[in-house]
């Protein structure tokens, strides 16, 4: 790293890395801002496109650019329970609450995170599956049990493809243009999603940009869900009548005697 770059890096670090003078700017666009759920919906994919913009005054850097894209879904209070042995049987005993946890989380980068930034920066900047959930002011998980529960939570949601770390999820099309596909599985909840794109060089954040998209039900799916909530009695009666009708119909169709 040249001396100049090092000074710039320190300056960028001090200023929080956002929009520091003579730094790069990040321009991002998404292939779509809305995912519509229809009856044949089985998940979807969006692509984040980005351009690193430099002007004449931007310093030359010795290090290549790195990009980390973090997509966060709707947040809920999650209750994590652990089964423990009690005599001969296994039952839920300890539990931990994780308020404001994202139900969907994808962290995509152009190379493994530990090659891009130090673990300390990752924690401070809330980068990576383990850190993205932490509230800003909380430091390390001093409580070993909480850390274990957090790992359990990440593991379970990763099995359902709701949590995903993609170490090669960002592709540089040229030295300054990149794209990152975001897979949204069908089980991802409806609601608004936030995408944060951060540009790094030499382990230092240079610029960041946020954008968003939403997952909504449409057409029949939307109407049925709305009816279930707005007209519960009618919805229930229709379901019951349909059940009785189908039951009667099949006994007529199959009647032989």
């Amino acid at each position: 790293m040249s001396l100049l770059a090092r000074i710039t890096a320190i300056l960028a670090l001090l200023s929080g890395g956002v929009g520091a003078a003579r730094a790069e700017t990040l321009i991002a666009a998404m292939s779509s801002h809305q995912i519509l759920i229809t009856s044949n919906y089985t998940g979807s994919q969006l692509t984040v496109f980005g351009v690193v913009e430099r002007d004449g005054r931007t310093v030359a850097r010795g290090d290549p650019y790195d990009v980390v894209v973090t997509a966060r879904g709707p947040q809920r209070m999650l209750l994590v329970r652990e089964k423990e042995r009690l005599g001969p049987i296994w039952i839920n005993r300890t539990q931990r609450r994780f308020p404001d946890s994202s139900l969907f989380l994808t962290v995509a980068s152009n190379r493994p995170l530990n090659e891009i930034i130090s673990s300390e920066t990752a924690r401070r900047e809330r980068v990576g599956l383990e850190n993205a959930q932490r509230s800003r002011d909380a430091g390390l998980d001093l409580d070993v049990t909480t850390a274990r529960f957090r790992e359990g939570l990440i593991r379970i949601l990763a099995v359902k493809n709701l949590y995903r770390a993609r170490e090669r999820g960002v592709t540089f099309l040229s030295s300054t243009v990149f794209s990152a596909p975001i897979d949204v599985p069908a089980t991802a909840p409806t609601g608004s999603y936030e995408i944060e794109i951060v540009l790094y060089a030499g382990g230092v954040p240079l610029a960041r940009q946020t954008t968003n998209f939403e997952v909504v039900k449409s057409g029949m799916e939307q109407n049925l869900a709305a009816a279930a909530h707005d007209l519960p009695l009618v919805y229930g009666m229709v379901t019951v009548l349909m059940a009785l009708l189908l039951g009667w119909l099949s006994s007529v169709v199959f009647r032989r005697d």
Partner: protein
Amino acid sequence: MQIYLPIAELPISVVMVLGLSGAVGFVSGLFGVGGGFLLTPLLIFLDIPPAVAVATVAAQVAGSSTTGVLTYWRRRALDLKLGGILVVGGIVGTLLGVLFFNSMRRLGQLELVITLSYVTLFTIIGGLMLYDALRAMLRVRAGKPARLKRRAGTHPWWMGLPLRMRFPDSQLYCSVIPIALLAVVIGFIGAVLGVGGGFILVPALIYFFRIPTAVVVGTSLFQILMTMTGATLLHALTNQSVDIILAVLLLLGGVIGAQFGGRAARNLNVESFRLLLALLILSVGLRFAIELFIPPSEPFSVVITEGSR
């Protein structure tokens, strides 16, 4: 082919759901049980939220038992008088069960209560039935009558309690007290476990009241139809967790399966009927026991406790 379920909020394979509900419908028609105790765990296993699974299965069970009720009604194998008492007692039991359900949920031990009840109920009932069925089969092998013949004028003491009533369709002359008590217990268990209770009602009517098997099945289906119709409406009103698309799929498979089940029941002799039902109930109990006793591969579980679905 996949279809998206608007309330459960996930896509599901149409062929798989039809196959599953068809198989469970067959069992339901064969034994006169609702099949909820088989279908609900299967749906939860397919990642459908438990609340949606329980509520939607109630609708499916209502539909598939309609088919059965009509079939048994035509064959005059349905005791409306007995069924009426069971329904009234069942309502009382359901209310008590809902109160118990909510207090256990407040204590945070609902899941344990449910698993433990499944294990104890199914293992004990299934075990007793299996023992009885095997003993009867051995007697047949030895050339004796399958079971000791009922002698005229003898009956267990509970049938002789006050308030005796005649149930001509069931060839029963019995006190109302034990019948109403049985109905309350079944309503209670049904509300807590989210099942219709047919798997308890059928053996209880056969063993404790010695009602002919065909009438037992028809009457049990009638009780289930009434309970599950009410349960579907309650679920739709209170927690909006009935998925109508899933209900249609389950019904299509279920009603067709139940037809074949009801037909197969006619070609099945009483002893094999009891043996098969015993094995079915016992295996469900053992499946839950495994969950309780075997160290879990993933000790953690995640529940969403806040926010709208």
